[in-house]
């Protein structure tokens, strides 16, 4: 069955949308990742205009993160103070990001910017995932190998505006989480992702937060930042497709539950290598779109960026 998406203005197969939502949802349930960084490029591959894919995916990430954020909130796994500082940065960053998005769209460079952002981030994350998983796998087989220290002191601990974060048991400069939030906010706006893949490692390795509260706190920030992106994209670019978001959501919710259940039965490190490889494959596909000689040397747009 085909459905005409009112904002994307294309006709797509409903089963395909549900399948995409389910597949990415399964992976996100399996690995505990948001899935936005896979969904947005996949939407672009099936012919959704990139600007619509990014804005709609931000909307879907709100839904995908809410139930997780609530669950962590109930278990008190959220450092609210840290979350609010990250969020302050996130609001500034995502507002800046949507502004940048609108400008790039007006000059016809938004598709290029989205692709480049994806190639860079999927490339880095995919490589890190594979390398890290292979190392962890080897460590399992050879327990004598040295372990990495969790909390180290860097130059960042000398920054001003120090704040005490009781839940995280940290006394650090508020500028650092603010800057991290800001950076992730820009990514959320331009890539249509929650940014958990940057936020979680940054919180562990840069801030030195305890792993137990990292996921809850990052989900807390992601819900509000992606909500801000949704609102600003709707106002500035009218690119949020509620119908598309709903179909992805239905598939995504079901897929995530199946994935979460399956994750208990499968071997962790091999799975992470697999996810890393999937991420790299998507990265290569996006990169190919940038370097391959286009079908036509001329492309259409509409003045003012309304496509």
């Amino acid at each position, binding site marked *: *069955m*085909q*459905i*005409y*998406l*009112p*904002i994307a*203005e*294309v*006709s797509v197969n409903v089963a395909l949308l549900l399948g995409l939502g389910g597949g990415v949802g399964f992976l996100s349930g399996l690995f505990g990742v948001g899935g936005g960084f896979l969904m947005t490029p996949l939407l672009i591959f099936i012919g959704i205009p990139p600007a619509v894919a990014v804005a709609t995916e931000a*909307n*879907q990430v*709100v*839904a*995908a*993160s*809410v*139930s*997780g954020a*609530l*669950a962590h909130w109930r278990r008190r796994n959220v450092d609210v103070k840290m979350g609010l500082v990250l969020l302050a940065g996130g609001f500034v960053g995502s507002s800046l990001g949507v502004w940048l998005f609108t400008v790039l769209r007006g000059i*016809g*460079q938004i*598709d*290029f910017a989205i692709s*480049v952002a994806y190639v860079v981030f999927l490339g880095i994350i995919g490589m890190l995932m594979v390398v890290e998983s292979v190392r962890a796998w080897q460590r399992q087989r050879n327990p004598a190998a040295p372990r990495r220290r969790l909390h180290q002191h860097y130059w960042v601990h000398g920054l001003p505006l120090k704040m005490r974060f009781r839940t995280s048991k940290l006394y650090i400069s508020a500028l650092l989480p603010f800057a991290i939030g800001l950076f992730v906010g820009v990514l959320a706006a331009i890539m249509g992702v929650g940014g958990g893949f940057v936020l979680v490692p940054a919180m562990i390795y840069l801030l030195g937060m305890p792993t137990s509260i990292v996921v809850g706190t990052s989900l807390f920030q992601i*819900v509000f930042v992606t*909500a801000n992106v*949704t*609102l*600003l*994209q*709707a*106002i500035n670019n*009218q690119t*949020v497709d*509620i*119908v598309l*978001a*709903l179909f992805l*959501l239905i598939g995504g*919710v079901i897929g*995530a*539950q199946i994935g979460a259940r399956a994750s208990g039965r499968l071997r962790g490190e091999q799975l992470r290598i697999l996810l890393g490889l999937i991420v790299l494959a998507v990265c290569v596909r996006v990169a190919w779109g*940038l*370097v*391959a*000689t*286009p079908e*036509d*040397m*001329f*492309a*259409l*747009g*509409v*003045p003012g960026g309304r496509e």
Partner: protein
Amino acid sequence: MSAARLRILPISATLLALASSPCWAAGKLLVDLSEEEIAITTGFTGTELLLFGAKEERGDVVVVLSGPARDAVVRRRERVAGVWVNGASVVFRGVPVYYRVASNRPLKEIAPPEILSANGITEGTLDLAGTTDVPAAQRVPFQDGLIRNRTRQGLYGYDPSGVAIQGDLLFRTTATFPANVPTGPYSVNVYLFDRGKLAAHRESTLVVRKVGLGADVFNFAHRQSTLYGVIAIVVAVFAGWLAGVVFRR
């Protein structure tokens, strides 16, 4: 197809009635459309429109369907450091978003080019000279790029055998509208040429519009975008919360 034939029958009946009355002599051409409105509904995947009519004795028929005029920007893809980016661009003002020509035989056999172009008929190669300030040498590749892209999207086209004539009296043609057809008023021009000269011309209009839920969502998103954004967030939060509740057990 049978529906199409059924619709033509009353026309030929009308024609017979008209043939005996004096007003027929003035109008050598009768035209009707299977629809006067193309509705883009939630299930829309593109559509076909049947245009049919009757003409007086011999002559060639040319049908021109033209969509609403909008500004178009064409960007040249340029290679920078190994990757393709959008480079130089040309803006064309007021170019029809849809332009399809159909005739019963190749245009050059029907009438001389001057006569055709005087009536706004071109073989799908719109002349966009008047729509931009860019000099011809620079304009032409961009103009060709625009036409090529729109042709690929099914929005532009020329079919030299798209009009079927039956018994030198009845004719019909089908026009295809792809799923991405732009909304707005369309003009339908039907020309009758007799031995290279324009013998008759009929113009009518057609509207393409979004209807139903999809149209409501689109209008809402554009007219009250702040409220739309808020609703999108509320729906997402509710759906996420609901999913958490349903699957907790």
